[in-house]
């Protein structure tokens, strides 16, 4: 039925068989497209991280000492823009999603392979336009607030165009995934037999298709404001500066669920595999993904409690914001309940998954201070917010992404990672991350505003500690990348199913053959049927 692991010879290279530039550039194979997305986004992860390191260097001293304030403002803008638009939004859905969605649902490819490769190249051209804007770097922060962004003579219009193209790619990918999940599931794979990673990416794709056009429209209005002087957002011309913030967050809040939901999906796959237990509360986790995708559209105003909205709007957005805590909590509790009476192996994917839970819980709980009206007024736009954001996005999404990379590296490359190096890297990253970002909670609570090129000397201790942490964190990431590169060439050959997983990707060879399945499998039960059953077949 499936490509048999035993039949794999040393010469077997699966989908990696063909060589040459064009075999990649014009490929229609979702796996190759996924790999290209992964390499592109990992490159920009390193670039964006480097800019973060430069920020930490500058903040060692309270006065501008390495960079001028103008340069500093450009650094944090590039850091945020690159990491958000070129790494964290596309990395999991377009990278790991492209590679694994078809395999996990028993399909040979996505629904529209040509659209898929087109999405990738639109993404690349968008990146080139964004890089072109570096000729006159942006200094607005990644949030582009008007009227500042309408006045600065940085290349806002060009950057907007680039982000518009990247967003276009995101919409097309989301559309492709929705159709794929609806139409291409293997016979017998009902909705409740889908792996929960698919549920998470399905919810993500809906957000991408619905929300991304709004940011495209917003950037067109901003470009029109700058080029034609129309005045949508300029009060001197009858416009409203807060209108831009509503538009911006109407996209940019839902999009944090584009960032976090796929990572949650990865965690949901890893925990049962390494506990050898059925996932606890399958339906609750599946529905909580959809609930987060839906509720994510109703809470954008919580970014604007101090912006000068009406008090009624402040109150409504605050209460709606707390509704997001419930589906998030359900997922965390269900993951932990899955561990109960499991047979737990602490391999590298599992320790990254557990780290995700640890850091994301801190990120989520500190979000309560920002969702509550009284305390948001205190800590809004301070380093407290910066810390919260990095705990959810780096501690959450990026750790989930790392977990996924360690989990699926053998499947994607046919090589095992070095477990010892993986754990060394993990330990350094965990220590470095917490030193870097936990201190920001303290600096923020003591009142240090974000986006400050220079700061009062009273905040120097936190900033020095945070910068030391950033160096440690960087060292850990360097070890991890060294492990990736080294294992790609020297790693042990990977068996088809190194972790004893029950989802479909572990039933094809590592790396998978070009068409994934010789015969499309017929699904007879859900993918989490670990453990001893009293009797009867799988669930439901």
């Amino acid at each position, binding site marked *: 039925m499936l490509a048999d692991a035993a039949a794999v010879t040393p010469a077997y290279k699966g989908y990696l068989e063909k060589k040459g530039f064009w075999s990649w550039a014009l490929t229609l194979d979702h796996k190759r497209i996924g790999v290209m997305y992964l390499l592109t986004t990992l490159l920009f992860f390193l670039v964006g991280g480097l800019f973060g390191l430069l920020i930490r260097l500058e903040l060692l001293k309270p006065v501008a000492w390495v960079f001028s304030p103008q340069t500093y403002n450009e650094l944090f803008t590039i850091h945020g823009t690159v990491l958000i638009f070129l790494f964290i939004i596309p990395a999991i859905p377009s990278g790991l999603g492209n590679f694994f969605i078809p395999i996990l649902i028993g399909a040979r490819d996505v629904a529209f392979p040509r659209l898929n490769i087109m999405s990738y190249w639109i993404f690349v051209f968008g990146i080139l336009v964004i890089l072109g804007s570096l000729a006159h770097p942006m200094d607005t922060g990644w949030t582009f607030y008007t009227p500042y962004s309408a006045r600065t003579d940085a290349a806002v219009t060009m950057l907007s165009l680039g982000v518009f193209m990247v967003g276009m790619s995101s919409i097309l990918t989301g559309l492709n995934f929705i159709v794929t999940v609806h139409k291409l599931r293997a016979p017998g794979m009902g909705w409740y037999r889908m792996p929960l990673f698919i549920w998470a990416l399905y919810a993500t794709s809906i957000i991408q298709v619905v929300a991304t056009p709004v940011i495209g429209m917003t950037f067109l209005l901003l470009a029109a404001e700058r080029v034609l002087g129309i005045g949508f957002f300029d009060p001197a011309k009858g416009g409203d500066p807060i209108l831009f913030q509503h538009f911006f967050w109407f996209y940019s809040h839902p999009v944090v669920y584009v960032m976090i939901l796929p990572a949650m999906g990865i965690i949901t796959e890893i925990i049962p595999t390494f506990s050898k237990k059925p996932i606890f509360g399958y339906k609750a986790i599946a529905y909580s993904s959809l609930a987060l995708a839906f509720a994510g559209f109703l809470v954008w105003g919580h970014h604007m409690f101090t912006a000068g909205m009406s008090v009624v709007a402040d109150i409504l957005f605050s209460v709606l914001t707390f509704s997001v805590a419930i589906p998030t909590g359900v997922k965390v509790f269900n993951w932990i309940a899955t561990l109960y009476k499991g047979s737990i192996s602490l391999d590298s994917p599992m320790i990254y998954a557990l780290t995700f839970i640890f850091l994301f819980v801190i990120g989520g709980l500190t979000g309560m201070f920002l969702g509550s009206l009284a305390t948001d007024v205190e800590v809004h736009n301070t380093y407290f917010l910066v810390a919260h954001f990095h705990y959810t996005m780096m501690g959450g999404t990026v750790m989930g992404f790392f977990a996924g990379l360690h989990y699926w590296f053998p499947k994607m490359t046919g090589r095992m990672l070095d477990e010892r190096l993986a754990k060394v890297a993990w330990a350094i990253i965990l220590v470095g991350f917490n030193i870097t970002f936990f201190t920001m909670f303290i600096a923020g609570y003591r009142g240090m505003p974000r986006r400050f090129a220079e700061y009062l000397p009273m905040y120097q201790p936190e900033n020095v500690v945070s910068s030391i942490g950033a160096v440690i964190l960087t060292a850990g990431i360097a070890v991890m990348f060294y492990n990736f590169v080294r294992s790609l060439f020297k790693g042990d050959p990977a068996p088809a199913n190194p972790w004893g997983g029950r989802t479909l990707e572990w039933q094809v060879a590592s790396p998978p053959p070009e068409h994934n399945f010789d015969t499309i499998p017929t699904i007879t039960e859900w993918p989490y049927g670990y*453990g001893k059953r009293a009797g009867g077949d799988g669930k439901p």
Partner: protein
Amino acid sequence: MNNAFNMTGAASQTAGQIDNVFIFILSIGIFFFLVTQGALIYFVIRYKKRKGDPDRETPYITESRTLERIWIIVPSILVLAIFYYGYVVFMKVKTPIQGASEVNVVASQWLWKFRYPDGRVVVNELRVPLGKPVQLTMTSTDVIHSFYVPDYRVNQDILPGRYTYLWFTPDKTGEFVVFCNQYCGVGHSEMLAKIIVMPQADYDRWLTGAPAAGGAPLAGRGEQLVKNSGCLACHSTDGTLKVGPTLKGLYGSSVALADGSAVLADDNYMKESLYEPGAKVVKGFPNVMPTFKGVLTDDDVTAVIAYIKTLGPAGHMEPDEKAETNAGTHR
């Protein structure tokens, strides 16, 4: 801001109440953190498989309606409690205080002007009497700024073209820092002011007293004015490149202007630059300086010029070099 830990620095009547909300949320947060991480660590240690051992047989547990109901209902009640408590205190901060004395705040890139009912304008320094409610009526002349006083736990954006408000009642004397907390360009982090809270008697004396102390040497008074009026956010006195041209060596030099002409930096030029900054813009610098008309009196201007004269004629800089570092401040 004198205290190492913010919590002890609460210096207005609502700050302490906001701290209580903070402690309430923190307690609930720590509770959930301990419950989740405790269970996670306990399960991992208790059910960890030794390396090399075969997998143990695990039970086929797929859900528990009771447990799931508990962890939906209990957190729902707690977060609603957090919302409600935050809402109640927020309303206290947002409700106008009857009889509050009003000060108008005008924020510009990158300084604050505080205008008192008697018409006096003070830059970057807000004096208020102890224990008396204050209303700030705020607007911006250019981009969005935000008035943030950590010790008062208040933070309100300031918008061009409309007014936003802030109320507080200081209950400690001393000096408290004001940050701009909405990114506003290259001088953002230097856009600082201080609130000086004085006993009522001292405040009355200040309010009725002469706006500036007489008798000080002219250049000395000018130096004070330059320091207190926010000039140093954009202009250095030692030749350092900042948003605006340095004041060092300015007096008597020939200044190249944006329209290609040149002008001699004499007293008339300096007064015009303070009162109508857009009239003659130095080549390579953005036209962003706000006017000081109505802020500095003619006597003040004389004092400022006297001070600039003391900064010497040396150290002339090329404005074109500056153009590079100043990119991106204005259309």
